[in-house]
């Protein structure tokens, strides 16, 4: 399968357009974040004329970004770990026809329904629930709310990945005497690692940027997450501080980009497993 020079060139051009389209707004954000404050009023030049870390310093010294980063990491990581374990197990059962039980149909529908519910209206009854349970001063409500968003997402998406796997592999392993949990852990999961990595990344992202539930449940500035802190930088009542907003976007991007780079390694791992190619 050799590529012709023509198609190579076309590919190169498409790729270049794609990169410009994707990266330009991000370049713009970055270039605003590193400019001095007085360069951010009036006409903005394409290239920055000054360099300064003042916005980043201001965020950490005066806007509580340090605490918010820690809180966000905590909430995101814990809720993602829970969601992945629960979601993967459940998705596998729902995807495999050999598991038949009465509640299967309703469970499938229930998961879908929860994914469809709009958070904007469900935040209020959840608030009432957590408030009565006296949990609002902790991070538990936010973590649970993130699970509520991510578990259905993971289940739903992983079902298709499990379904795409041929059952023959499991069947032959079962004949060899493997138990169900061995099948799941040793045979099935490794083959859907790309899917796990992808939903992992997207769930992390959802959780990291989640605002609606966060703002309703938070009771103390010491529990603020990154999106909540970012939101206070912008309001109709005050002039936007472009430098801080852009710098906040960069700070928020870094942890999640690191996570993506780690999780990426699993994106192609499934291929190296010879069992798929039967």
């Amino acid at each position, binding site marked *: *399968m050799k590529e012709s020079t023509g198609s190579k060139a076309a*590919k190169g051009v*498409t*790729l270049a357009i794609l990169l410009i389209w*994707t*990266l330009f*707004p*991000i370049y*713009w*954000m970055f270039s*605003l974040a590193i400019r001095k404050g007085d360069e951010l009023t*009036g006409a*903005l030049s394409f290239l920055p004329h000054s360099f300064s870390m003042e916005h980043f310093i201001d965020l950490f010294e005066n806007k509580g970004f340090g605490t918010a980063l820690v809180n966000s990491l905590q909430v995101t990581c814990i809720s993602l770990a829970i969601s992945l*374990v629960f979601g993967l*197990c*459940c998705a596998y*059962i729902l995807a495999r026809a050999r*598991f*038949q*039980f009465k509640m299967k*149909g309703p*469970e*499938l529908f229930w*998961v879908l329904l929860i994914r*469809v*519910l*709009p*958070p*904007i*209206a*469900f935040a*209020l*009854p959840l608030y009432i*629930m957590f408030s009565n349970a006296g949990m609002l001063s902790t991070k538990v409500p936010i973590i*649970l*709310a993130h699970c*509520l968003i991510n578990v*259905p997402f993971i289940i739903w*998406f992983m*079902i*298709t990945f499990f379904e*795409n*796997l041929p059952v023959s592999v499991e069947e032959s392993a079962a004949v060899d005497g493997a138990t*169900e*949990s061995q099948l799941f852990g040793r045979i099935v999961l490794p*083959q859907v690692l790309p899917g796990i990595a*992808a939903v992992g*990344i*997207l769930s992390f992202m959802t959780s990291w*940027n989640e*605002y609606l539930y966060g703002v309703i449940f938070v009771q103390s500035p010491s529990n603020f997450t990154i999106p909540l802190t*970012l939101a206070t930088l*912008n309001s109709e009542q005050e002039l936007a501080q472009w430098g801080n*907003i852009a710098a906040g*976007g960069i700070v928020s*991007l870094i942890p999640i980009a690191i996570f993506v*780079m780690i999780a990426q390694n699993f994106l192609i791992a*499934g*291929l190296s497993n010879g069992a798929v*190619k039967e």
Partner: protein
Amino acid sequence: MKKSNKLYAYLMSSPAMLVLTVLSIFPLLFVIYYSFTDYYYLSSGKPAFIALENYTDLFADQYFRQALWNTVKFTVLAVFFEVLVGLGMAVLINSVKHHQKLLRTVTLLPDLLPPVTVALMWQIMFSNNYGLFNNILGLFGLDPVNWLQDVGTAFYCILVIDIWQYAPFVFLLLYAALQSVPQDQYEAAAIDGANAWQRFTRITLPSISKNIIMVVLLRVIDTFRLFDKVNILTKGGPANSTATITQYIYQYVVKRNQIGYGSAATVIMTVIVLILACGYIRENFRKNSAQKG
């Protein structure tokens, strides 16, 4: 194995089900119940049962109908282009031999940014004072456009931002799906003399069609909730041309504490999305029971 099979199935699926049920049964009943009342959160009296009045009021409200129509139109356009662009990105990047890892990370970036920041960065670029886009138009001697406040452009500006942000989402999930397409099929097709387009339509598309349908569904669900960008950039204007259902609900639930009315709007929104999703579910159920024997 058969008996332990059932136990195993319950054991594996119950933790997730438990979390989902405990967290959502009360909210669900709450929203459905109060959608039939005139519940105003701050009122000291008990909410009165008003049967379907909220629902009839909603459908009689031209702003709601406008928001509904905007949302449907936006969802159809956004999801179509996001899947198109996302699929293109996935196939393209999957075929690149060098720096694939770097490319993957870089193309994902728009999706990783906080929505607030995304909206504000685009606002600066769209600005009709010193905005970048108008400067570019100026270079070609064209008149500036009031991108976000002109009835003809505001809706499409929001659309462009949404596609920019979420095409990478589609890309990632489809890219992951492409990884499990067996390579030998391509090799066989190449031997048969199939060209790139034929390989794409005959092998790639059928192999990931399930994933595409799933991505469409997930995007439809999420796009139906469009709110952040509208709230920050246009507030539903100009002339209500960018008002969405979620923004409408926001006005009632968040700004006015009109829980009853807002709940009714929520129920309608949920039902619409469920109807859209139903096709997929039925398909899934049928298949699941077909494999039963």
